[in-house]
């Protein structure tokens, strides 16, 4: 493998890893704050991808906008969806056992998949990146690298930084963190915990949908993508250590590299490699790489 190819694969790994981190942090957020394990998180990613495909013409004819307008509209819709879903469905899951949460959100996956099938169909689609970002930059003498992939990495980093800022530096973040460890105390302070949870959930959904929309031009849009990303997110959380954001980042990048280079070097074993790595890490550190915090 020459240097340019190696560099390309590194950049691809980084992009995939950061995207995974974004989706996984939405999952951990909802679990960490509300104690709900949400299997349908992958479905939100899938919804985002299909939105990027299906909304584009609608947005084009209504607003005359392009990719970025679609992103904005999609995110707004995602926040609304998350808000309604929490109100109508997820708020009933908070007090339930994990097994019940797992099964009810699994049922939701089936519902989302079929609704998508009814509304948009089961075909695989490609989505074009916007004109502005569809160019390439030169890498060495012979190779080039798509600008759009760099855009994805940048956006993920920006969002991750934004989340970190909200959590650690704002009042809202402080309320959220307090609410996760002591519901009653937060309520007695006059903060509407129900509204807080709804906001957090909507944010988690929006992150997943946004990630799906942004990833659509590079990953293509197909029916099984929700389930696939969900399970990989689980592996991120398991390897990183549950409750640890730092762990999720390290784990996501690790998976990004193993998966990308695996596909290039050992295509037949690529699917299994990530799980083998997980098994080895668990042998060494049964609780994952990092402890919560």
């Amino acid at each position, binding site marked *: 493998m020459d240097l340019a190819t190696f560099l390309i694969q590194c950049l691809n790994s980084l992009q995939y890893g950061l995207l995974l981190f974004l989706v996984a942090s939405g999952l951990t957020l909802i679990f960490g704050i509300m104690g709900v*394990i949400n299997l349908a998180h992958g479905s939100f990613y899938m919804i985002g991808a299909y939105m990027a495909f299906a909304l584009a013409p609608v947005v084009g004819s209504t607003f005359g906008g392009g990719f970025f307008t679609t992103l904005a509209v999609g995110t707004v819709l995602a926040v609304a969806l998350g808000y309604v879903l929490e109100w109508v469905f997820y708020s009933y899951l908070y007090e339930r056992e*994990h097994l019940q949460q797992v*099964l*009810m959100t699994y049922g939701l996956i089936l*519902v989302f998949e079929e609704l998508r099938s009814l509304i948009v169909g089961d075909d695989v689609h490609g989505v074009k990146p916007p004109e502005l970002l569809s160019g390439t930059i030169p890498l060495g003498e012979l190779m080039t690298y798509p600008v759009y992939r760099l855009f994805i990495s940048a956006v993920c980093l920006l969002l991750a930084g934004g989340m970190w800022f909200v959590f650690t530096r704002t009042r809202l973040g402080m309320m959220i963190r307090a609410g996760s460890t002591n519901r009653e105390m937060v309520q007695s302070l006059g903060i509407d915990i129900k509204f807080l949870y709804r906001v957090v959930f909507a944010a988690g959904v929006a992150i997943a949908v946004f990630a799906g929309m942004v990833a659509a031009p590079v990953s293509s849009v197909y029916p099984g993508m929700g389930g696939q990303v969900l*399970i990989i997110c689980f592996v991120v959380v*398991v390897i990183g250590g*549950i409750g640890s954001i730092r762990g999720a980042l390290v784990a996501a990048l690790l998976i990004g590299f193993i998966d990308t280079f695996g596909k290039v070097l050992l295509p037949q074993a690529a699917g299994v490699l990530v*799980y083998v790595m997980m098994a080895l890490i668990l042998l060494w550190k049964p609780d994952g790489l990092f402890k919560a915090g």
Partner: protein
Amino acid sequence: MGTTTDRGKLAFVIACLALLAAYPLVGGKFGVDLVTKIMIYAIFALSLELLVGGTGLVCFGHSAFFGIGAYAAVLLSPQGASPSLLWILPACVVAAGVYAAFVGALSLRTKGVYFIMVTLAFAQMAYYVAHDTPLGGGTDGIYLYTKPVLGPLDLDSAGGIYGFTLACLAAVFGALAVLSRSRFGRALAGIRVNEQRMRATGFSTYPYKLAAFVVSGAIAGLAGFLFAVKDGFVNPELMSWHLSGAVLIMIILGGIGHLRGALIGAFAFSLLQEFFKSEAIFGAFAKHWTLGLGLAIIASVALLPRGLVGVPAQVRGRLTGRRGSAGSGGSHG
């Protein structure tokens, strides 16, 4: 007061088995094939019930053991002659048990949600081995050309596989019922209710959990073996996480904490699936049957948290104006 006595439970189970034994006399070809499949799922569900209801370990990767039992049946069968049931059945069960020992050793140090995620991931690992490597034959799957034999038993005939599956179901049910009353089974029950107290009393809980995990995986492997022999065909979907989800739904639908719940749940879920798939009822919409199934799953978990097994007690409670008391914990029938 409102509980089912041990005799009542035994009577119910014997009645079910008797009905199943008599069914081929009235059922047509499709019916016998379907019921064989449901009985295989019942064995699968019973194996998971040991883990979830018996020990409190929610495993979301049980399809791996089912799939390994099935694939082992195909991969271990010699090309020419029919293998003897006496060695191939145990071999498949052991293969599944070995993978269960591996997964259990690595995942049982974790708890709760973490455990759910790890078991799911390990099932995906097995899925990818079947799906991507030449060992698994890829998405197309592999055919079983020679079915096992044991004396006059012909597993190639619909009646033969039906009868053998029924015998296995009865044996597994009986064995698990005996197990749940044994010291080992009671220890598992204690671990489910309060693992900390068990440890404080002097039980090293990890070996118990691992043993339960391996036995559970092995029985799932038996179910997979029967599935491969019945259909003569295996593909990676037998290890898909959707099957892991389905079998969890079966036991919660039937009722966690009751062996007969696994039996009831397997039938209820399979019949529910057939209902939603039926074109006679839903016409063209039948191809979107997973929508109805998803809604039914949500409804059943929300409305029947104790499963179908709990319905008679709920009804009795309503009729007599009293609440049925919870089980005495003495047995797990």
